[in-house]
């Protein structure tokens, strides 16, 4: 599904990713853990196509096709989705207007027809219900005045509607209370499917109790320094990142 080869990325002359390799298979849930500032969010932005980052080397292949030349909108239409660590507030843009515009833009890019308004509303309402999102929130401007947890739920709602192939969740668990963590995790699990893969960035094992990963990768100083199964997350929880920091320094 996704293959990242020797990715080297800088921003304003600071190297942030230093030859990162990562492969996520079809239907796989891969977790990335790593210290603050190790480049996890940077990786997620580079996958989604943010322009501020300069890719010096390497490639990102989605189903064998290099997506680095594509704009963020084209990547979205190709099936990439990023649930932001800090979802943005967009004053004046109604949530429903936004959702409909996104959905139809992606359909159009794929040569599909527009969704009818009743179909659209039905889909949104169904997704909102599973994620226990209040209808009133849908009437407000996108993310404006939403609590941290509400914003994260709204990200998952978008993911559920857009049905992407490759989903990057950047610290979706931060800011969620215990119930919300369960609800959001169930939402994600419901989307797990053969043709859909996830890259789950988190600091805490507790998310991975709900969304059980197939693989766990440790990121440090812009590289994947260790990979393993779900037990790796438990080890990290116990021992921290000291070992990886030391190995980098050596």
């Amino acid at each position: 599904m996704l293959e990242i080869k020797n990715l080297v990325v800088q921003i304003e002359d600071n190297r942030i990713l230093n030859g990162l390799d990562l492969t996520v298979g079809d239907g796989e849930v891969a977790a990335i853990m790593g210290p603050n500032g190790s480049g996890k969010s940077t990786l997620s932005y580079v996958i989604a196509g943010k322009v501020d980052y300069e890719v010096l080397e390497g490639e990102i292949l989605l189903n064998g096709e290099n997506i680095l030349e594509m704009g963020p909108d084209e990547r979205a239409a190709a099936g990439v989705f990023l649930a932001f660590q800090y979802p943005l507030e967009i004053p004046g843009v109604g949530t429903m207007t936004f959702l409909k515009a996104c959905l139809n833009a992606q359909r159009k890019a794929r040569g599909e027809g527009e969704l009818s308004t009743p179909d659209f509303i039905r889909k949104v309402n169904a997704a909102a219900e599973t994620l226990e999102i209040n209808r009133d929130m849908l009437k407000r401007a996108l993310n404006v005045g939403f609590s941290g947890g509400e914003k994260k739920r709204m990200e998952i709602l978008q993911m559920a509607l857009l049905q992407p192939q490759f989903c990057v969740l950047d610290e979706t668990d931060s800011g969620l209370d215990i119930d919300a963590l369960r609800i959001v995790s169930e939402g994600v699990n419901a989307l797990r499917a053969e043709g859909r893969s996830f890259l789950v960035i988190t600091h805490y094992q507790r998310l991975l109790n709900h969304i059980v990963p197939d693989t766990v990768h440790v990121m440090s100083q812009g590289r994947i320094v260790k990979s393993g199964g779900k037990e790796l997350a438990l080890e990290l929880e116990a021992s921290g990142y000291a070992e990886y920091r030391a190995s980098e320094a050596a």
Partner: protein
Amino acid sequence: MADVTNLRTAAEAGLSKLFEVARMQFPTGVSIAREEAFRYFEAVGLPSRRVEAFKYTDLRAALKEAAAPAESPAAEVVRAAVQDAKGFAGIEAVRLTFVNGHLDLGASDLDRVPGQVTITPLNDALANGDPLLDRLAPVAQTRENPIYQLNAAFMADGALIRVAAGAKVETPIHLRFIGTGSAAFSTATRVLAVVEEGAEVTILESHEGPDGIAYQPNDALDVVVADRARFHHTRLNTEGQAAVALSTISARLGAESHIETVNLVVGAVLSRHQIYLHFAGENATATVNGATMLGHGQLADSTLLADHAAVGGVSRELFKTVIDGDSTGVFQGKIIVEQIAQKTDGKMKSDCLLLSDDGQMMNKPELEIFADDVACGHGATCGALDDDLLFYLMARGLPKPQAESLLVQAFLGEAVEAVSHEGARAALISEVEAWLARRG
């Protein structure tokens, strides 16, 4: 003497000549006021950038020639123009149609004016010495404005609208101004709306005309909002691309009255819309918004004067300008709080969105406060679209132009939202969408 004459521009000399001819043809009512207005204009001339109030909008440079006042167009010309007219077209309204500045009775709905409303063509009022004429020019400061005084000198047609005390008029009155023709012309219209005590009315005003013709409309709307009356006004400037469009709304506000006036500008190579508010009675409230979208070569000026002369007035002014290409936006806003006007609450804001590197926005906010217990403020912002917001929208699949459009709509939306007539609000939103679609 010789020097002074030499300094007059061709346009100023032309206007004097045109006035000599025109003054003989007007009905006699207000002829003294006309003479005075023109003498005032002659004395000050077309304002150049050296005149403080016209610092950013040099009319002397912009108006090279004085176009002759338009003749009343033939019936088939009117018919064609009305058929193509788009401004507020889908809205159920009582229409007063002005073609090239002349009220066309055939294309107007004077036969179905709601009860409690009277509408009199300006020329009938002048010929008959209508007592409402005394209510013209409700704000004193307009007498020192060359644009308004030119209108006063040349006003060739218009209407007097009176809404009887207590009347709540549901159907809006639509002042539809259509320009047509293939050569430059000028127009000067004056509409007076007197909303009597406790009455409520909505006036829509649309302006459109041919592209490529440097026509020169000068339209004035005088408003008297009596005690506890409510006046809603939505204005749409979709003038032709080469028009030099001047306009003034001046309103006198009675006690506890309310005015809402929202102006959307997309048209004209140069436009200046002037708003004069005189808070005459206590606790009057005003919402004054502007939404302007400018492209290559355009200049749009919004100039506001809010004169608080009574206790407890509240004014909210929000002007939003989108600048594309090498266009120029101008906002000049002055809030005066007279000594007597304690507890005045006036807030004025101008926000500008720059879509290009070549455009510019000029802001000139002024507060003149002579009372001590007031809350007044102004603010101005100017910036490009937020890259992070654009990325967020694009990461959800919106192509860049669509993402930009959504953000521009959101930016202007704040000013347009204040329009209380649903159909008019929707019409303004459509204009924003159409502008964005043309921009591509």
